[in-house]
C-alpha cells in the first residue's frame, strides 16, 4: 500500500443521510472474485438509468466531479452490509477520503484497510461543507486536520495504529503475522 499523508482536493457532495453500502455497491456486483474495476459500479443505481445510461444530474456524472478525491456524504454513511466492495469501489473510482458526521463501524474499518480515510467532523463543519460543494480542502493525516479554504482547520479522530500504518504504507496483516509467538502462547495457555 502507498503511504498517505496529505490529500488536497476539491470535494464532491452527496447530501443523502444514512447512505448504506447497498447504495455504494449494489449486491449484483458482489459476484466479482477480484477487487479491481469496482469504481465503474459505484452508486450504480443512482448513477445510471434502467438502460445503463448515465443520469446527467447525478453528482458523479457531472464534469466537476472528475478528479475529486474527497467525498462529503450526508450524515451517517456506510451502514448496512459488511461488503468491502464498497470502499474498494470508492477507492477505485478515485476517492481517498470520505467525510461525514458519523461513519458505521465495519465500513470505517474496511476503509482504513484500503487507503480510504473515513473522516468524522462536527455538525457545523459538515453543514458548511455540504453547503459549499467543490471547495478545495486539505487533509493532513499526520496532523489529523482538515483545512477549509478560509484557513479554518478542524481536527478529526483516527485510530492511532491505523494512522501509523497509513502514514508508512504498512499493512496490518504483516503486523498480525509478527505476533505468532503471542498467538501460540495464548493457544497453549487456553488449551485452544
Amino acid at each position: 500500500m502507498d503511504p498517505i499523508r496529505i490529500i488536497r482536493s476539491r470535494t464532491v457532495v452527496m447530501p443523502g443521510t444514512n447512505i448504506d453500502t447497498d447504495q455504494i455497491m449494489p449486491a449484483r456486483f458482489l459476484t466479482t472474485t477480484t477487487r479491481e474495476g469496482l469504481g465503474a459500479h459505484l452508486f450504480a443505481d443512482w448513477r445510471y438509468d434502467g438502460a445503463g445510461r448515465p443520469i446527467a444530474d447525478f453528482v458523479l456524472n457531472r464534469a466537476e466531479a472528475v478528479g475529486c478525491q474527497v467525498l462529503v456524504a450526508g450524515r451517517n454513511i456506510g451502514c448496512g452490509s459488511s461488503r468491502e466492495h464498497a470502499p474498494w469501489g470508492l477507492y477505485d473510482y478515485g476517492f481517498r477520503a470520505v467525510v461525514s458526521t458519523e461513519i458505521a463501524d465495519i465500513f470505517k474499518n474496511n476503509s482504513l484497510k484500503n487507503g480510504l480515510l473515513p473522516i468524522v467532523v462536527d455538525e457545523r463543519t459538515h453543514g458548511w461543507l455540504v453547503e459549499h460543494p467543490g471547495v478545495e480542502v486539505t487533509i493532513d493525516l499526520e496532523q489529523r486536520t482538515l483545512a477549509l479554504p478560509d484557513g479554518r482547520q478542524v481536527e478529526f479522530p483516527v485510530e492511532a495504529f491505523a494512522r501509523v500504518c497509513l502514514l508508512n504504507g504498512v499493512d496490518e496483516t504483516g503486523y498480525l503475522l509478527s505476533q505468532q509467538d503471542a498467538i501460540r502462547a495464548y493457544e497453549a495457555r487456553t488449551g485452544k
Partner: protein
Amino acid sequence: MTATTLFEKLWRAHEVVAETAETPATLYVDLHLTHEVTTPQAFAVLRGRGLPVRRPDRTVGTMDHSTPTVADELYGRVPIRLESAARQVREFEKNCAEFGVELLGIQHPDRGIVHIIGPELGLTQPGKTIVCGDSHTSTHGAFGALAFGIGTTEVGQVLATQCLLQRKARTLAVNVEGALGAGVTAKDLVLAIIQRLGVAGGTGSVLEFRGSTIRALSMDERMTVCNMSIEAGARAGLVAPDEITFAYLKGRPRAPAGAAWDEAVAGWRGLVTDPGARFDREIDIDAAGLAPMITYGTNPGMSVAIDELIPQRPGDLIHAKALEYMGLEAGQRMLGQEINTVFIGSCTNARLSDLRAAATVLKGRHTAKGVTLLIVPGSQRIKREAEREGLDRVFIEAGAEWRESGCSMCLGMNGDLVARGAYCVSTSNRNFEGRQGVGARTLLASPITAAAAAIAGRIADPRELLA
C-alpha cells in the same frame, strides 16, 4: 473483583495482546464462518503471500448468498442461471479444498444461511468469539458469544492468524420489560428498538439485551433480535446464556457431549453481567405496549405500528425522499396498502418456528390474486424438518413457492428479485433502496404479518387472522 459486564468478560478471555493507546488489542477468534461472497479476495491474499490457513479446524464454510433456491439448479440438473454466481460457487469450492477448510457445500445436507447453520449445528456456543465476513454475524450473540461482522481484508487476517486487531467497544444495555401481546413477535420488538435507537444509535457499541422480556424469549426469537442489532449500527448484540440456551444446544451435532458438556455448561453459567456492573449507556423498552410493526421507509429505523399512520415530518428531506422512493405518503395508513410480493425467509426469520408461525396464518387460506409468495427456509435441515411436519403442503396449498434454502430475495444476488416498483412485505432485515432488486420497495415485518399480507393482498393486521 469489580463487577464486570458480559462483554468485558468475553473480551478479556480473548485478548492475545491487550490494547494500548498506540495499538489495538489482538483478539483471538474461536470460530470463523465463511461464505462464497466475501472470501475470494482474502484467499487470493493468502496465496499471494504463500500462507496457509492457520486453524482450518476453527474455520467452516458454506454457500448461501448467491446460491440458487430452485432444486434443479442446486442439484445440477440444469446449470446455475447466473454465470457470475456459478463462478463464485466454484471458486469457493476450490479455495476450501486447497486450504483444507471444511465446506458445507452446495449440495450438502447441512448447508444453509451461515447465521442459521452455526447455531443449528451447535457450532455457535456461549463464550466464543465468532466472526464472519457478513454484518449479520451479530445473530450469534444470542448465545452469549461475542460475534461480529468483518470485511474481506479482516477475513484474510483471521485465516492467516486466527486473530483480529480490535478496539474495545462501548456497552449499551437495552432493558426490555413486559410481556409481548398476542401476534407481537421478536421481529416487532427489534424493529421497535431500532426505531428508538435510530440506525446509527448503536455505532461503536455492543448491545446487551436484558430484562424479563428477553429472558422469556426462545433461542429463535433471541436470534431474531440479535440479528438486527447491526441495523441500529451496533457492532454486536448479546444475550446472557441461560437454561434456554443450554437446552437448545444440548445434543446438537457440534456441541460438546458427555463430560465435556457438563464442564462447558459450568463455564457458561458465569457468562453474565455481574450485578452492579456499569454500562456506558442504558435504554428501557416497554414490550407490553408494542403492536406488530412494519417499515414504511428505506432504512430499518423507519417503522410504525401496523395501525399507525406514516408520520408527517415537514421539512425533513430524508423522510420525503424515502417516501418518494416508496411511493407512499406521509399521513397515510399502512393498513390496507396494496402489495405485490411476500418473502418469508432470511437469517432474521427463516427458522422452523418462523415457518410454523407463518403456517398458522396460511393454513386453509390462499394468497390474494396477483400476489407472489416466496418461502425460503433458512437451511436444508429446516427444509426437511418443515416437510416432515407438512408445512410445505400448507404453503403450496396456500399458493406459495417453496424453495431450497439460501439468502434468496433478502438481497437478490442469486436472481430471486422483486420487480421494479413492486411492494414486497419481507421478513428480512434491510429495506434499503434496491436491496431486493432495482426499484423494489421493501416493507419489513414479522412472518405472521407477511403471511397476513399475502392472504389479503394488502397490509393487514395479523392479529385478526390468528385463531
